[in-house]
């Protein structure tokens, strides 16, 4: 729980919100439809997205390390005889046989694009909340 306590008075907050909303409305219509093709945005913390050239060196290193670790997470073709999960719990869309899915160390599987977007924000399994980096290290130790 927690951390919702606001220092300012409620009136100030509602005014701030009003501004936020109206600026959002102004920005939305001009957003290009191909926004995915623009400079990639990285998330040093989950709600703070910035293009690579606006990251500190430390943040760049952390993100690069994460991308490196993600490459160790196997991508395999979905096989319904092995996997009990019929759908990706992130997008709630059923897996198709032969489709590429990513395996986390805890053996939970997701669509590659669904889980990669999440891992870039938070390095935990959405189903069991196991931290992926710790689990990866353990699997190295045991191998």
């Amino acid at each position, binding site marked *: *729980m927690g951390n919702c*306590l606001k220092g300012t008075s409620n009136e100030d907050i509602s005014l701030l919100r009003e501004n936020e909303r109206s600026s959002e409305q102004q920005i939305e219509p001009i957003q290009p439809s191909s926004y995915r093709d623009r400079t990639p945005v990285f998330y040093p913390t989950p709600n703070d997205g910035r293009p690579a050239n606006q990251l500190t060196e430390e943040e760049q290193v952390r993100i690069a390390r994460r991308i490196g670790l993600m490459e160790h997470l196997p991508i395999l073709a979905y096989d319904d005889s092995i996997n009990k999960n019929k759908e990706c719990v992130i997008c709630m*869309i059923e897996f198709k046989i032969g489709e590429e899915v990513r395996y986390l160390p805890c053996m939970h599987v997701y669509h590659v694009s669904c889980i990669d977007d999440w891992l870039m924000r938070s390095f935990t399994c959405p189903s069991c909340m196991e931290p992926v980096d710790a689990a990866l290290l353990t699997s190295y130790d045991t191998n």
Partner: protein
Amino acid sequence: MSEPQSSLLLRKQLAELNKNPVEGFSAGLIDDNDIYRWEVLIIGPPDTLYEGGFFKAHLYFPKEYPLRPPKMKFVTEIWHPNIDKSGDVCISILHEPGDDKYGYEKASERWLPVHTVETILISVISMLADPNDESPANVDAAKEWRENYQEFKRKVARCVRRSQEDCL
């Protein structure tokens, strides 16, 4: 432009909730043309102070859902330690991981992309039954809940009564 994933996912949840309603709340859209803004009606959980009340709330989903959580705001007046006086709901599962500057919350208690309207509302209903006074959003309500329970009960009862009048 193809429909974003967030919109498909929300449509799917809305269809599912219409087909198989979940006990304790009903869900729909504020405006039929906007899948990102929901209106829910929460039925005050039985055997709690909120029993008998009908509390309307709005959920605002970001385009990045389910990577980012929605915001939730009660439209009906409600007196509760974890709902601030403007109606904003403060529960940890609606907080993004890494959002917790003070380290009060475990990552596992925060937002995960597997949360749905249903799981969010189940958490909110359980919060109504069982307030968390460690990190209140409404300090006066939290203080009353701890120190002057009679007065707390009286205020909640007034909200319940008003919510019934609003619904008629």
